[in-house]
């Protein structure tokens, strides 16, 4: 896919114009085709009128064939221009929607956690799932909208040339009708919005029931939930019934108003026929024009709705695009100082040396996460953290990420072939991957897969259990062979047997590098070279597990769950 370019995010309007500028060629082409398509429908009536006047009424079979042939020809023109119009409209849809998806996608992948901190993930997905298609729909119907206006003007001109009065009636009548239908739209929109809201609540109730189904079937309460669902379902239904009246009114209004126009045109036309200034066939044609004009009228109404939705959607997209990453490169990033020998956090007093495994024990999980954020530079201000004596904040973010890897408390897996999910960067021989899987005691996970390392991981890795996901993510962290690895509660979801095995193999796996584990499990802690006990953001004691068990009551309280 081509690069989508840099969007204009000053406002929703600017964004839509930016999109339009980039596809003006197809918009113009689509407009031409849409105009041809609509005009051939209108001119069909001229041909029917011609056949009646010059063929049937005048008694000339050859004229009749000629006009009938013209209808067939118009039909072919209509079919071809219609197909081209449709193709170009879909192209316009795709360009606008895909470009939006791409700019959103690029932004999501580049802005780190800043975006997800501000906007719920569901809204981000919605901008791709709903807003982008809506913006696309507006561009899809734009050409028909312009074509509708052009064909209305041309039909008016045709009528003007044979009858000033009729021409003026159509020229003024159609926009008047378009304006007249707007009051019908408002109550409909209100009723539909109410129904959408009620439907949203009902859908939430439905998914909530499914999500908690195990509990409902296990403990009970089905009748209560079914009753609640029925009540809400009844509300949705009543909201729908309330929307039925304005909906039916708008639709029959769209029939009625043009029918009045048709009656007026027919009335005046018939008088001109009686006076002899108009042929009967021309009257048939005029009647046809008047009925045809419902098409442009409907397109205009349709486009107004689409454009409004697109504008709202573009507003959401622009808001999302204007949130920038908070952790950024310094103006002049320093070159990375080679292999990491020593990391020091002056504020907490944690210090890491190459070739050793460390653990940090805190009183609350939040404290561990905050320390990992600081050492891994997931917050903008990391003053006091140094790598080989240089300030961490002086390096580029990408260099930092390459050499210091944080494995979160809830690491995510992504869909894709398992081999490349474990080693996303560069290539890795299978033996290394197997060694890492062995280290995290996950060879049994691999054995259960039909295609081994070539198995496709489901979206979010949801086909694995929580414990399996945790072990695979840990293997991925090991396989980075990062100079510094920070593991937050890496074994919280695995059983004791497995945790023991992982703890035993960790030191060997990380022999060449520096590793910090945030954990409170004795199985893990007893394998560490040094354990830091942190309280109030400061290291209050450090040493081996045995040493701390013997010397610190706080440590015993946290790790051994001893009551003080």
């Amino acid at each position, binding site marked *: *896919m081509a690069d989508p370019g840099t969007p204009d995010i000053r406002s929703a309007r600017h964004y839509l114009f930016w999109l339009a500028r980039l596809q003006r060629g197809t918009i113009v082409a689509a407009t031409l085709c849409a105009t041809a398509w609509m005009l051939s429908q209108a001119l069909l009536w001229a041909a029917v009128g011609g*056949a009646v006047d010059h063929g*049937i009424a005048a008694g000339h079979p050859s004229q*009749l064939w000629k006009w009938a042939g013209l209808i067939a020809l*118009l*039909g*072919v023109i209509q*079919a071809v221009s*219609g197909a081209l119009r449709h*193709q170009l409209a*879909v192209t316009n849809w*795709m360009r606008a929607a895909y470009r939006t*998806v791409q700019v959103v996608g690029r932004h*999501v*992948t*580049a802005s780190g956690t800043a975006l*997800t901190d501000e906007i719920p993930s569901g809204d981000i*997905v919605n901008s791709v799932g709903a807003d982008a298609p809506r913006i696309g729909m507006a561009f899809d119907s734009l050409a028909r909208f312009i074509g509708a206006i052009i064909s209305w003007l041309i039909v008016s001109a045709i009528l003007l040339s044979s009858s000033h009065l009729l021409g003026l009636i159509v020229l003024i009548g159609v926009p008047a009708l378009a304006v007249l239908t707007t009051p019908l739209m408002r109550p409909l929109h209100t009723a539909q919005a109410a129904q959408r809201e009620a439907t949203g609540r009902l*859908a*939430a109730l*439905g998914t909530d*029931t*499914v*999500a908690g*189904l195990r*509990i409902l*079937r296990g*403990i*009970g309460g089905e009748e*209560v939930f079914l009753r609640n*669902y029925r009540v809400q379902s009844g509300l*949705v*239904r009543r909201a*729908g019934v309330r929307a*039925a009246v304005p909906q*039916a009114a708008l*639709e*029959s209004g769209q029939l*009625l108003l043009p*029918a*009045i126009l*048709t009656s007026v045109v*027919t009335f005046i036309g*018939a008088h001109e026929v009686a006076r002899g200034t108009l042929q009967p066939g021309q009257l048939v044609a005029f*009647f*046809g024009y008047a009925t045809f004009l419902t098409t442009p009228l409907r397109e205009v109404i349709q486009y107004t709705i689409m454009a409004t939705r697109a504008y709202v959607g573009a507003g959401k997209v622009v808001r999302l695009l204007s949130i920038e990453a908070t952790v950024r490169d310094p103006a002049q990033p320093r070159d990375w100082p080679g292999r990491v020998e020593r990391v020091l956090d002056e504020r907490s007093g944690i210090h890491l040396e190459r070739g050793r495994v460390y653990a940090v024990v805190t009183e609350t999980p939040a404290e561990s996460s905050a320390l990992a954020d600081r050492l*891994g530079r*997931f917050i903008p201000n990391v003053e006091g953290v140094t790598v080989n004596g240089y300030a961490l904040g002086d390096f580029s973010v990408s260099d930092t990420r*390459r050499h210091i890897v944080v494995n979160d408390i809830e690491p995510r897996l*992504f869909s894709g072939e398992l081999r490349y999910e474990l080693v996303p960067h560069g290539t890795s021989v299978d033996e290394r991957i197997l060694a890492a899987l062995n280290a995290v005691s996950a060879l*049994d996970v691999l054995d259960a897969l039909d295609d081994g390392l070539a198995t496709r991981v489901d979206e979010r890795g949801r086909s694995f259990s929580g*414990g399996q996901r945790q072990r695979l993510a840990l293997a991925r962290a090991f396989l*980075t062979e990062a100079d510094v690895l920070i593991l937050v509660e890496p074994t919280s*979801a695995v059983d*004791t*047997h497995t945790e023991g095995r992982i703890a035993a193999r960790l030191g060997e796996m990380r022999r060449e590098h520096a590793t910090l584990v945030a954990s409170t499990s004795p199985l893990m802690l007893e394998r560490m070279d040094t354990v830091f006990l942190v309280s109030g953001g400061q290291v209050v004691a450090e040493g081996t597990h*045995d040493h701390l*068990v013997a010397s610190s009551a706080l440590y015993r309280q946290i790790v*051994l769950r*001893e009551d003080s």
Partner: protein
Amino acid sequence: MSQLPVAGASEVRAHAMILARQHRGEGLRMLSLYALAAAVALVPAWIIGQITNLAAHHQLTSALITREVGGLLAASLAYAGLSFLARRRSYILGEKIFAQLREEFLASVLALPLVEVERTSTGDLLSRTTNDIDALSRTVRFAVPEWLVAIVQALITIVAMLLVSPLASLAGLVSVPLLYFSTRRYLRFARPGYVRERISYATLSGTVAETSEGARTVDAHRLGRRQRDRIDANVRENFYAEMYTLLMRLVWFPTVETAFSLAVATTLAWSGWLALHHSISVGAATTVTLYVVQINDPLDRIISWLDELQIGQTSMARLFGVATVRDDRPAHGPTPTSETITVEHVSYAYREGRDVLRDVSLSVRAGERLAIVGPSGAGKSTLGRLIAGIDAPRVGSVRVGDVELASMPLAALRRHVALVTQEHHIFIGTVRDNLALAQPDATDENLLRALDAVDALEWVQALPERLDTELGTTGHALTPAQAQQLALARLVLADPHTLVLDEATALLDPRAARHLERSLAAVLAGRTVIAIAHRLHTAHDADRVCVVVDGRIAELGTHDELVALGGEYASLWRSWRNEGARDS
């Protein structure tokens, strides 16, 4: 994780027939209104024919014009009025039928057998509850009525054409074979294309979802570039899917449009020729031609809604499929004479030939605490599910007293055993709703007592609306520990004599679980407890420990016995509890 069944075509048809019968009266009234509207809609073209006739015979007078156009206007007004009534009626009926269908669906979901609930992937059921209900909404509320209406309009127009001139109407038939074959071909080839379109767009949304939800991991592992390329690749796949259906339409649309104008051209030529030979009047020729133009619109709608109807049919099949799963538990059964749980020579397999449990026998007396430990995949959870009566063993027997658990009526089973997992779902609704599901007739006093028992009374009373505070995704957010406490309070209310705890507190941070242990202890008091344990301190506190390895019971005895035995459990215990720290 397995998928639920999908109903067959004949079942869907039978269901649709039942629906049609249930709503026959309203449906017929709606269709008659539409038929009337369609008939009135044909009047203007007929009047134009009359005017043309009068003009051709130079009989057009001002009075006649007023009469004819008056008729035209009256017909237009009647048409708009009748369509208003008909449409309103059809929307209301659509809402009614759709409401009925979704409520029936949810009832069938809530009646799924326990074993099916445990086995089915939530994704499958969720997608039926959201996507298929959505698709059905469009079908029932719009596609079916629009389609029926279009058929009525087309039929009425054909009748009118035949009334004006059967002979002249013949020419309109030229379009039929073209429409039939091109549409049949289109539907056959395009449908998989639309399925692919939907799937590829869902994949795209999925990639964006996992990327934004996993933003932290993406950042930590520098996966931004890769996820971006994946989004691009998903977009490309959706593009190809769109191009395929576009290509299908680029053949079909022009064929349909050509067929329509061909019908107009031949009708005009043929009826004009008949008029030239005075077989019919000029007006009749005009009217029939106008009718052919008019009938194109309902015909177009008939064939363009076919797509949506097919999608609706697929969704119906998936929704009705849930109802085909029947609970085979009897409504009534014998009452157990004791509370002892007996497992006798039990084997169990998820897949044929691969037993997860092999010849397991075990007896748990009332009030006993049993811990089940063992490595992942050893069959601990499966054993727990069998003891909880969710599933029946392949071979052997699992009983409470003398009654087989798997064949106990569900309501009775719940009074005996409950399975407690680490899932602690909070439902949308008040605190009261969330608790009362375990005991629908509980008084507030009961509820508060249950909350007090699990140490949750204090914070519930501090909530803005206390028991009436709205919880769930849209309401007041609870901490995981509070959510877990509510789950425990539900158990106090449900009051089964036996609890099977499947790693109920495993996912919680030990520092939070520590607080929860007190709540848990209150729930466990006076009950038989079978705890599947990750953490060995649970085992230490149990009356007996059962070590499951490879589908068999490897060791069974008290904590001290097993430690003294020096086997699997003893070595685990030693490494878990550092010798130097032992203070007991």
